[in-house]
């Protein structure tokens, strides 16, 4: 109490005000004129990217893979002088494969970290949560790797751009071929959350349109570690084809248990998308059935070996020795957004959105077989979808897949995108972090 009284007497309100005014005047003389100072600061102000990527939960590995992709793209730009003459920085928080965390992270990145745009997400629930926050503020958000058809369908937003192929794209690539090869009696086993449910719906619609009969739809709770009961049920149903829409760690466990029982050859498995981090490390015999992907490190295309070499040089310590589809999308999304900022010469969100809408990505530049286009009405990247299976003649320890065919973007276009109703430019808040 005594101490407090003495302090109060030592610094009177009047002396404090005097000191403040004097300090302000000195500061103005030193730092002014204000306008010029602001321009100077802005030219040095970094472009800041918010990486919303999982490091825990069922998509932890994929989250870190796409993070590596984004960081490699950022480093390439920084090595070449940045964007608009400004360096690029990134902030990253673990979104924990949890929508609530995604919401918190997005709020923090926009309101406290003042990011210029955000990117990342594997799980569609997380992506949807982030994009709602992004739309509220007008901050551009690149959904790099979550592939629920609703992401560019009923949950689309003006600020969101979806880079991965969606569940319907992959189903379209695989269904017709699988019905003709294996038969029309299908059973669908799916993860019981938004991506799995939407992909199951898309699979049912697409497969039945090609003449399939859906015998059963089996939901699998997220986090399931024992599939023996499900596998017995599948065997008892005796389907021609089992279509799977299970992701992350759950898919790893399912695959392991299928392989353990020797069921990989007894049943025709049609997967949706096989994410590279979900299979790498399990051995070249781990992949079975047919499935889709958007990139493979042994694609016979110019630029792919150089891309792989660049990855190896940058990430010699990672256990995933070669880049996969998740890394590829993370890299490409970051690179394209930075290119757009450079071309537009601004970080104004509406200008950038308009530049991204309808943007064409050359096949040789994206390391795919066909040109890709960012659909202006759904903000979903229309791209090459590859049909693949397990590789029975691998050329090395990383050669898990055998690419069977590649579908043009227009052949696998998702009808769920018709549900997309983007907010108008006027209804999208202006967002520019300068």
């Amino acid at each position, binding site marked *: 109490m005594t101490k407090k009284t003495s302090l109060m007497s030592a610094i009177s309100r009047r002396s404090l005000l005097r000191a403040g005014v004097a300090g302000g005047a000195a500061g103005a003389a030193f730092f002014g004129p204000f306008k010029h100072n602001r321009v100077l600061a802005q030219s040095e102000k970094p472009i800041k990217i918010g990486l919303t990527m999982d490091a825990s939960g069922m998509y932890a590995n994929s989250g870190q893979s796409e993070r590596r992709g984004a960081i490699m793209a950022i480093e390439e730009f920084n090595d070449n002088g940045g964007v608009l003459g400004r360096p690029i920085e990134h902030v990253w928080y673990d979104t924990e494969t949890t929508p609530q965390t995604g919401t918190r992270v997005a709020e923090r990145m926009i309101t406290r970290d003042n990011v210029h745009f955000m990117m990342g997400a594997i799980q569609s629930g997380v992506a949807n949560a982030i994009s709602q926050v992004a739309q509220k503020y007008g901050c551009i958000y690149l959904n790099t790797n979550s592939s629920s058809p609703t992401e560019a369908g009923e949950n689309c937003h003006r600020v969101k751009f979806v880079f991965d192929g969606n569940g319907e794209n992959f189903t379209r690539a695989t269904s017709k071929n699988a019905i003709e090869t294996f038969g029309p009696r299908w059973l669908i086993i799916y993860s019981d959350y938004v991506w799995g449910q939407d992909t199951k719906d898309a699979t049912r619609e697409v497969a039945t349109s090609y003449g399939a009969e859906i015998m059963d739809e089996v939901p699998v*709770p997220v986090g399931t570690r024992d599939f*023996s009961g499900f596998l017995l049920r599948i065997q008892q149903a005796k389907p021609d084809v089992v279509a799977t829409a299970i992701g992350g760690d759950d898919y*790893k466990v399912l695959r392991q248990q299928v392989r*353990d029982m*020797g069921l990989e050859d007894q049943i025709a498995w049609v997967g949706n998308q096989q994410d590279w981090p979900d299979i790498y490390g*399990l051995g070249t015999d781990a992949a079975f059935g047919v499935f889709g992907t958007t990139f493979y490190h042994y694609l016979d295309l110019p630029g792919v070996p150089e891309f792989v070499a660049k990855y190896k040089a940058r990430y010699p310590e990672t256990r995933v020795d070669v880049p996969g589809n998740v890394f590829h999308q993370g890299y490409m999304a970051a690179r394209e957004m930075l290119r757009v900022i450079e071309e537009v010469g601004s970080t104004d969100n509406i200008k950038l959105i308009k530049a991204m809408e309808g943007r064409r990505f050359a096949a040789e530049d994206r390391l795919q077989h066909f040109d890709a286009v960012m659909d202006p009405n759904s903000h979903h990247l229309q791209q090459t979808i590859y049909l693949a299976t397990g590789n029975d003649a691998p050329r090395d320890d990383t050669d898990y897949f055998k690419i069977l065919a590649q579908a043009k973007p227009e052949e696998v276009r998702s009808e769920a995108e018709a549900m997309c109703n983007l907010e108008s430019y006027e209804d999208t808040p202006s967002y520019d972090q300068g």
Partner: protein
Amino acid sequence: MSTATWLLPHLINGVALGLLFALIALGFMLIIGVMEVINLAHGSIFALGAYVALAIMAPDGGLPFAFMEPFYALPAWPRYAIALVVAPILVGAACMLLELCLRPTYGKDPLYGLLLTFGAALVIEEMIRVVWGSSEYYLPIPRDISGGFIFADLIYSTYRIYAAIFACAMIALLWFFLNRTPYGAVIKAGAHDNEMVRALGFNLSRLRLLVFAFGAGLAAIAGIIMAPIWGVRPVVGIDAVIPAFVIIVLGGVGSFWGAVTAGVLVGLAVALTAAFVPDWSMISMYLLLLAVVTFRPRGIAGRASILER
């Protein structure tokens, strides 16, 4: 197909799964029964067991020691058998450090022990991540116990049957140890009355140390047995510690046969719901727990605990 014919494979599967759940819970049961410590690090120790076995068995198991090259050249069975023995011993010995850390918490609010083991769980998981990375590993098993076999027109996993038989053997061995050996008698006495054991001249600190190491070793064995089914990844321990906790509470804390019975019941609940109402399969064990503790708050065999006799 009749209902019985349809149901029988699921019942068999449920019992096999239940025995595996019981195996997971054994070490947890021993530590909580004797030391009255809820060891939240049980799951991480379970994972550590799988990783250490991986490092012993496989040259690509993250730690390719040059001096082990001749060992890696051995056939799968001896490597597997050695891993199954050596890995739990190494893990049990390492976990003695955790018991030393726990000592200041004995006789105090149980929350201290709970928090300490929770912290230990995080530390062990991060250590695994640092040493082996976050990616998935596959624990190789001998060809004789892999693949499937056909019974009544259905394919079953050979390894799962092996694992269930192994779990039965472990349960029987542990029961024998606790009930038919002088060491088991001391452990049970320690669970019943610590001070009396000390008064009789036994070194209580050493007893606790050995029991904790033994419980950790059991967790490691469960981790090795479950690795080919669940996979090997740093967070796999979470998949183990939650059912273990449910089984211990369901069976009655400290009850040996209560834990085994609860394990089988949980296995049946999970397997049957997976067959009939798949979206309820994850929650079924919690509903079972809720139903039992509503009417028997001490669990199925809470009164008849072998460790409380």
